């Protein structure tokens, strides 16, 4: 109740006359609602388009609610849409994306946690230098390191294989995740670490018994960051995954770009929603954690 009063006072002070205050209030809401419409519109259009049949789409009323609901496009997108050679829909891509995302997320987070722990508690020689290089790594355009990585993967025989793409994701996730853990661990009281050392705990004992139990919140953030990031990746999947392991995003682009036959806009939009579904679910479920992930990921130096 007090908050409400304070708020009213606040706005009363903002302008000379009360009447203008309410106008400003309406302006605020108008702007926000207008912006919300702009941001929500594509999602609405996606859903509506995916539920129409092609005849209705050709009328050109992109915003209209479907006159007759049809779920055919969804079924087609999932199991029978064509990508040039094959007509298996987006389903193989979905399972490939899971096969790529799950191991990549686990592996990259374990490595990043150990790295961040080593960087912040065990100040070995050159730790600061490595830290600087990590920041640099987080900024480097992928294009600069992609070709050497292709050559390297070819040399070790992992190019266009599932382990290959998992390693690539782990490598590219490392700088940012290590920074995330390092910054988090740096904020923990060092006395904990010192006390554990006095008690005779070693590198791994401290890591598993002391540090990791406290790193649950940052690990949730890291999981959100990595699941959405790796699922949404297109470039690495295109270059490194190979034909048999194409992730969903690549498959989606192939389906939409297929020019043989009539363009099935409704099927394309269904496939698009299906591809966006996993990260969107993560986003809607995680709520504020997602925002924390962005903020944490953005703090790079």
């Amino acid at each position, binding site marked *: 109740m007090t908050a409400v009063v304070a708020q009213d006072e606040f706005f009363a002070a*903002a302008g000379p006359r009360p009447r203008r205050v309410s106008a400003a209030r309406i302006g605020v809401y108008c*702007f926000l609602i207008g912006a*919300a419409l702009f941001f929500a519109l594509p999602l609405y259009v996606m859903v509506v388009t995916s539920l129409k049949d092609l005849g209705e789409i050709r009328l050109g009323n992109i915003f209209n609610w479907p006159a007759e609901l049809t779920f055919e496009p969804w079924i087609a997108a999932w199991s029978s849409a064509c990508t040039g050679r094959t007509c298996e829909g987006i389903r193989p891509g979905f399972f490939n994306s899971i096969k790529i995302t799950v191991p990549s997320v686990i592996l990259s987070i374990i490595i990043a946690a*150990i790295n961040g722990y080593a960087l912040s508690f065990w100040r070995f020689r050159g730790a600061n230098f490595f830290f600087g290089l990590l*920041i640099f790594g987080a900024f*480097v355009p992928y294009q600069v390191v992609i*070709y050497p990585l292709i050559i390297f993967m070819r040399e070790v025989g992992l190019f266009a294989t599932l382990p290959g793409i998992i390693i690539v994701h782990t490598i590219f996730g490392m700088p940012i995740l290590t920074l995330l853990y390092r910054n988090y661990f740096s904020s923990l009281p060092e006395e904990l670490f010192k006390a554990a050392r006095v008690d005779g705990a070693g590198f791994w004992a401290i890591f598993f018994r002391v540090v990791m139990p406290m790193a649950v919140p940052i690990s949730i953030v890291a999981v959100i960051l990595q699941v959405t990031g790796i*699922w949404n990746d297109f470039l690495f999947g295109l270059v490194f995954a190979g034909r048999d392991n194409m992730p969903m995003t690549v498959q989606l682009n192939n389906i939409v770009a297929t020019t043989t036959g009539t363009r099935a806009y409704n099927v394309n939009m269904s496939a698009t929603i299906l591809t966006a579904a996993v990260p969107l679910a993560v986003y809607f479920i995680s709520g504020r954690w997602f925002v924390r992930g962005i903020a944490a990921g953005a703090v790079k130096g």
Partner: protein
Amino acid sequence: MIAVGVGLYVVGIGYSVALSFTNSKLLPKFDTFVGLANYDRLWSTGRWLISVENIWLFGLLSIALNMLLGFLLAAFMDRRVRYEDTFRTILLYPYAMSLIVTGLVWQWMMDPGLGIQSAMQNWGFAGFSFAPLTNPDTAIFGVVIAGVWQGTGVTMAILLAGLRGIDEDIWKAARVDGIPTWRTYVFIALPMLRGALATAFVLQAVSVVRVYDLIVGLTGGGPGIATEMPAKFVIDHITNRVNVSLGMAAATMMLLPIILLIGINLFIDWRRKAVAMRAAT
């Protein structure tokens, strides 16, 4: 483990830069040293020149719009609006989706025959025209719209967190002094948001330099080569066009602005420390 990871980056970058001085087509060949010939060729390749021009136009426009809209939204959200969580969810969800998805959705929305344009015309606005992707002169603005749509929510979230971090007393002081709310935001809050603004800017700048998926999904670089970008130039030259050394020369050029940015950052840090030292003595 860190050493391996970091080493990979350093070796990788060195390898790419070294390749740019050779004459490698399909496979790396280090015995064909050609000096700066690839850079010469790069800067006389029309496709690259257009890519560079595009990334400047796209970068400046989309970052400016993104920051402006992001700040306005953050300021308005900060006015204790009702349903704040709902607004935030709607403004931020595009960021959770792949850039390929963003590209494909907007391609559909901007479809000249069946998209927004035709819907508006069917509603009676006969002269309504909105199909930027079909015209080489306007296609890049279509890319800007999609980019702003995807990234503004993040800027808003970062700036809003920054606004919430400002001391309550400052608002009270401004109110006591009778400063209008909008002026408090522009002249008092904005300078205090320097850190958040820098964070949001860097995040956007990095995504601009990396822009690839959005182009592939939205325009495929077309019409013609009107929306080509450096990142796409490099990938195309590695994969389809089989001219690795030229691609690596382009990649090295992409590295320069990042190095410059970090250099400026280090310089500012160093200056600040130097000033602090002088103040201390």
